[in-house]
């Protein structure tokens, strides 16, 4: 599983804090959290670009849109915009060295919405994109059960 290194790093950091968090957590745990969060954030930014590209291609492929397709396009546009806003909000958290799970989780929800809307239109995300979506979902605790 791709998500395990992230989860392990975050769990170790959380465990370190839970065991002895009267003072600051050990530096190596803080570094692991920062590294995991930075990786998940960067993956999310790449994911946003890829989802935006796939959805744009679908929009361009529809030559004479019907009302359902227009509504789907509007929902995709809004979800991509909300996803970008979630990542913009996550950035200061990442820079501050936090785990930022909540912020990245909001992005994941929007990315999943776009994937579902595209799927309803017969468009599936490429394997390269789906793999990273699962990876970031795992980090943000939004994985499929």
């Amino acid at each position, binding site marked *: 599983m*791709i998500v395990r*290194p*992230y989860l392990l790093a975050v769990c170790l950091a959380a465990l370190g804090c839970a065991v002895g968090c009267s003072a600051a957590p050990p530096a190596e745990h803080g570094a692991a959290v920062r*590294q*995991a969060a*930075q*990786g998940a*954030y*960067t*993956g999310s*930014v*790449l*994911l*946003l*670009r*890829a989802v*935006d*590209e796939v*959805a*744009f291609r679908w*929009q*361009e492929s*529809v*030559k*004479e*849109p*019907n009302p359902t*397709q*227009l509504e789907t*396009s*509007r929902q*995709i*546009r809004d979800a*991509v*915009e909300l996803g*970008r806003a979630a*990542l*913009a909000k996550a*950035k200061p958290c990442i820079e501050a060295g936090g785990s930022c799970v909540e912020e990245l989780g909001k992005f994941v929800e929007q990315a999943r919405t776009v994937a579902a809307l595209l799927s309803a239109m017969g468009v599936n995300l*490429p*394997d*390269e*994109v789906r*793999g*990273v979506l699962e*990876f970031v979902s795992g980090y943000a605790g939004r994985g499929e059960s």
Partner: protein
Amino acid sequence: MSALESLLVTTALEAAKQLAPEALAGLIAWIKSESDDEPAALAELPVTLKTAIGHERMVARAAKSG
């Protein structure tokens, strides 16, 4: 993009690749081959979203067709 910004982007991409080499390297390769996004800016939030442009074009085509 300044030299410092470029360095930060590169560092972020490297950090990501270390943590999930297969998944992220594959996605970076996909974006580089399938989109016209500037490679040096891949780790930055896009300023313009293509789906916003795509939606406007769809609306225009729908109006034109009927």
